[in-house]
């Protein structure tokens, strides 16, 4: 079962990576357009003579935006599109574990978005002469991977929910877009929020990840200083993944009862 799941995950990740990178023109949209967005903020910070850490903070945050949109628009709604295309019934009747499909979608999406995030970050660093703590690369990499794990586990929960609610959930996507980015402190540190909101925001893996990376890369803190972030992200990954797997099974069973797996335009 595990072997089959990994094979399915590999195949689904292959689709995502191969499909996306077959056409390189998307890098223009994926790297240069976000670069314009972050540039506007960095120019504003420069004009206001903001401290260097604000610029670095915005650069790190901006490079992570892509992951959130990928979760919402590629991960969460993917099962809905798979259903519309006629793929979902075939996935189900093939006997392939749907968790493998979700895992593959997550791995493929994370890989693609990492290329894009690196592109944005490197160009921002070069263009705006941003200085980051290069000695913290290893703990940052670990933190980054944990952030992605918990973020894409959350994406799996969204994907399962879409299976039940169909395209009406796309409105929730729109609703979750900007507010989550705002609360995650993409362009500013979240310690500007009152404590209660900071605690609430800690449930968003993106916010935790970005905050941790800032502490490591900008504020020169070490792994032990922010170990709670690592623990929180591991905890969120386990909880989200567990919920996602349970929810997926539940949605599949409910789909067989209601017909929502096969009825299109639902």
């Amino acid at each position, binding site marked *: 079962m595990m072997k*089959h799941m990994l*094979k*399915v995950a*590999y*195949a*689904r990740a*292959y*689709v995502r990576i*191969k*499909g*996306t990178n*077959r*056409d390189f023109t998307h890098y223009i949209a994926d790297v240069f357009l976000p670069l314009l967005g972050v540039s506007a903020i960095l120019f504003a910070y420069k004009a206001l003579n903001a401290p260097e850490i604000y610029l670095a903070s915005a650069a790190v945050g901006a490079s992570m935006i892509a992951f959130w949109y990928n979760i919402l628009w590629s991960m969460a709604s993917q099962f809905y599109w798979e259903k519309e*295309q*006629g*793929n979902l*019934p*075939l*996935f*189900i*009747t*093939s*006997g*392939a574990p749907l968790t493998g499909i979700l895992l593959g979608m997550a791995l493929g999406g994370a890989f693609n978005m990492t290329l894009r995030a690196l592109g944005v970050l490197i160009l921002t660093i070069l263009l705006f002469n941003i200085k980051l703590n290069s000695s913290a690369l290893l703990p940052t990499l670990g933190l980054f991977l944990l952030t992605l794990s918990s973020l894409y586990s959350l994406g799996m929960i969204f994907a399962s929910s879409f299976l039940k609610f169909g395209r009406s959930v796309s409105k929730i996507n729109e609703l979750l877009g900007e507010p989550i980015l705002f609360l995650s402190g993409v362009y500013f540190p979240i310690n500007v929020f009152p404590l209660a909101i900071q605690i609430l925001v800690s449930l968003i893996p993106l916010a935790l990840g970005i905050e941790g990376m800032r502490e490591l890369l900008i504020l020169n803190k070490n792994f032990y200083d922010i170990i709670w972030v690592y623990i929180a992200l591991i905890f969120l990954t386990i909880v989200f993944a567990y919920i996602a797997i349970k929810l997926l099974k539940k949605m599949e069973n409910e*789909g*067989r*009862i209601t*017909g929502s*797996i*096969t009825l299109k335009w639902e």
Partner: protein
Amino acid sequence: MEEVVNTINLSRYFGDLKALDNVNLKINKGEIFGLLGPNGSGKSTLIKILATLLLPSEGEAYVLGYNVRNEFEKIRKLINIVAGDDRPGYGVLKVKESLWFFSQLYGYGIKEGWKLVNSLIQEFGMQEYADKRLNRLSSGMYQKYNFVRGILNNPRLLFLDEPTVGLDVNIANEIRAYIKSWINEDKERTILLTTHYMAEAQQLCDRIAIIHKGKIVRVDTVERLLSLVSNEHVFELKTSLISENILSNIKSIEGIKALASDNDVASNISNIRIVTKDESIIADIISLLRDSKIRILNLNKEEPTLEDVFLYLVGRKLR
């Protein structure tokens, strides 16, 4: 004879709508079994239940001896579906990549999957477009690819849901030839086919179930079904637009077994298909039409087809 499908008083509701109504059906190993019915007759619902995508509301269904309710995982290893109006796969992938992707879903090894795909591409003469992206395929190429995808796991029961819908005659015939040769290759294989095309059903199916409003009206071989109307006479009439009133009058003529009509309001033309017991009855019909000031534009005597069997049994046209 070994049963591949067995349904017992199978019903399925969607809210108040009864999509399947006490369906009792047995499909034998090795046959191409046709399901014939208009849109909304319950064909797709039945297929979805047998393919483990939908649960029955009442009754039981067994596929290859396994219950669809609680043994669906065993069933899934032995079946596959090809739906004519779906475009499964990913447009950005090439044909061979997409087939490989599906091979992985069926549990083949990575290299084993490529080997299988390459051999199927050869076997089905798809080399020319194996490296084309799915979003650049013609309908015919796509359906051929879809059929190959459907047999990747060598299913013991293959569901073909309108496999040639929208295809031109040559490609449709090619697909039908593949279907025929695929089933003839191995006696363990069975096909459940739904189609709107009478010729397709006649050409491919060993037995046919006529389904209407969720109920199985009749199950028999093509020959036996045709024999229901073989002694009848079928006329196809094209007239000026005809009212319901006049149609009722025609229906009331003694000896008329079945009648179906459709009106083309744009061109003011009605097409009427009539099954009669006696050839001479057409004279009464013509006389009635003349008295009603309806112009007869064309009158043909036709050979009875499955369409007429459907008309005869159900009282309406299939399409």
